[in-house]
């Protein structure tokens, strides 16, 4: 953990070397993601409510999902484009030459502070949504905490699965964005409005819906018309752990393939 901090601190120092460009990027990420939310706002206002959810309700969903994705992007960017480059130019070899786990090292190879833009924007929207919550219980706060942290873990797992595919494909398959960015947009709306197939996918295979949606249900004291229990949020740590375990296992298979195929 100390080593992780030192490596990350080095990455951040490197990024801060270009101060103006850094500030500009943080701002542009905030603006880009704000525009995303404005798009959501327009949709909701058009229909007044979606699946019985008002705009502030949806702000809670969106806020959790966006800030979690922002955190994941910040932490796990090493699995994204930089990793693709690692495989293409063979710098992954250097990772194998260091006396630490490869998953850890790739995670520690990049930390994009500029993604803070999305996190901040997500938290701002979230706080607007939370403004309407009259009563706060321990359970509400816990649901919020679980919602953000556990979905962050799932997003990170998704990024690493995308990276693992590079061991075979070299280029990162575009389809992963459907689950990360697409997942974020989808979980910004109540799960009940979606088709059954989509619901099943986002409750099981890519269980973002099984974390973010019940978290919002619990915080807002709502119930799902289709019977998805709000109490599902208490399973979120287990779900997140399972995702992380699967992603890590898949990763080790990928590394073994790399070492024996010698790309």
């Amino acid at each position: 953990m100390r080593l992780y901090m030192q490596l990350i601190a080095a990455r951040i120092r490197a990024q801060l070397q270009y101060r103006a460009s850094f500030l500009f990027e943080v701002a542009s990420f905030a603006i880009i993601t704000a525009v995303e939310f404005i798009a959501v706002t327009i949709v909701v206002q058009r229909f007044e409510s979606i699946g019985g959810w008002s705009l502030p309700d949806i702000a809670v969903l969106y806020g959790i999902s966006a800030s979690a994705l922002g955190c994941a992007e910040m932490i796990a960017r090493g699995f994204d484009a930089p990793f693709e480059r690692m495989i293409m130019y063979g710098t992954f070899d250097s990772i194998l030459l260091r006396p630490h786990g490869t998953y850890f090292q790739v995670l520690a190879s990049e930390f994009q502070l500029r993604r803070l833009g999305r996190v901040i924007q997500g938290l701002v929207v979230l706080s607007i949504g939370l403004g309407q919550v009259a009563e706060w219980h321990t359970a509400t706060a816990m649901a919020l905490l679980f919602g953000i942290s556990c979905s962050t873990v799932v997003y990170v797992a998704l990024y690493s699965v995308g990276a693992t595919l590079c061991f075979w494909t070299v280029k990162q398959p575009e389809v992963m964005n459907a689950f990360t960015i697409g997942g974020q947009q989808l979980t910004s709306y109540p799960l009940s409005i979606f088709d059954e197939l989509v619901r099943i996918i986002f409750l099981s295979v890519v269980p973002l819906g099984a974390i973010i949606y019940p978290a919002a249900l619990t915080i807002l004291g709502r119930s799902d018309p289709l019977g998805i229990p709000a109490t599902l949020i208490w399973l979120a740590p287990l779900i997140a752990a399972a995702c992380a375990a699967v992603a890590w296992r898949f990763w080790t298979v990928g590394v073994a393939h790399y070492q024996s195929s010698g790309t």
Partner: protein
Amino acid sequence: MALIDVHELRKVYRVAQPARRRREQLWRFIRPITRDVVAVDAVSFRINAGELVGYLGPNGAGKSTTLKMLTGILVPTAGAIRVGQAVPHRDRQAYVRQIGVVFGQRSQLWWDLPTIESFELLRHVYAVPLARWHENMRTFRTLLDLDSFLQTPVRQLSLGQRMRADLAAALLHDPMVLFLDEPTIGLDVVARQRIREFLGEINRERGVTIVLTTHDLGDIEQLCQRVVLIDHGRVVFDDGLRALREQYGRERRLVVELDQGDPPIALLAQLPGVLHLEHDATRLSLTFDRQTTSAAALIARVVQHLTVRDLAVEEPAIEQVLRAIYAASAVVDQRRDDR
């Protein structure tokens, strides 16, 4: 017991067969046809602690692949490697603590940061005790003259500076073996010389075992006590540099300074053992096969025909020796293909 023991090492890559016609491209994308490429066929050698060995061969001979297996990056298709107590790819994390690796073409340093920060990060990565780290840094700063660019970001270093920094980085954690893949590639004469001197010193003073691949003949002549030569994935020679010359360097050259012009060229060219003759007004150079004739016998014959002012017998340059070996094994390969 040898420090490094490589036995019948083999590595086969499976590569996609590219389409010959453009029409085929889409079909090949859907159903790729692969073929196996043998990069390393059956390589065996042993290296003792403290040796400095040149691992040589023409491009595509399998040098880098062998080095990648020795460093634990790649898993062998067959055969065995043992370095110290470790099997490189299997014990990777523990093993890489004991080795240092420098790839000439690729830096292992943190690109965006001042050079000194890479050394500091490596201290944490390898958990080098602070006192030991300071001591090593002091040594390398002097030997490699690092001080002038410690504060410069790695991306701004010249190639020579970068290579020096990479060498220091590879040795900060006191590895017992140093693997180098073309450490002098692209460097100027002075920078090359400095790297060679440094490697020699590290090998002598610290007893670091060094295995290096290179195409640079100066590296081989000045550094390598022993040469392992591979071609087409097999070891074709493994012995001292002297033995290499003895075995393959059959050609030698007799250079004669003449007192007066107009030597009997046709006659000289037909002396036994003479393979090739060049001359100008005052100089005559005879390439001869030393298995057919000795230098003494040839000189005795030459002085019968000429008034000699001075003469010298030249050893074959290692370059010629290597060229002869590569050419010979290419012929063997050609025959194998023809069959």
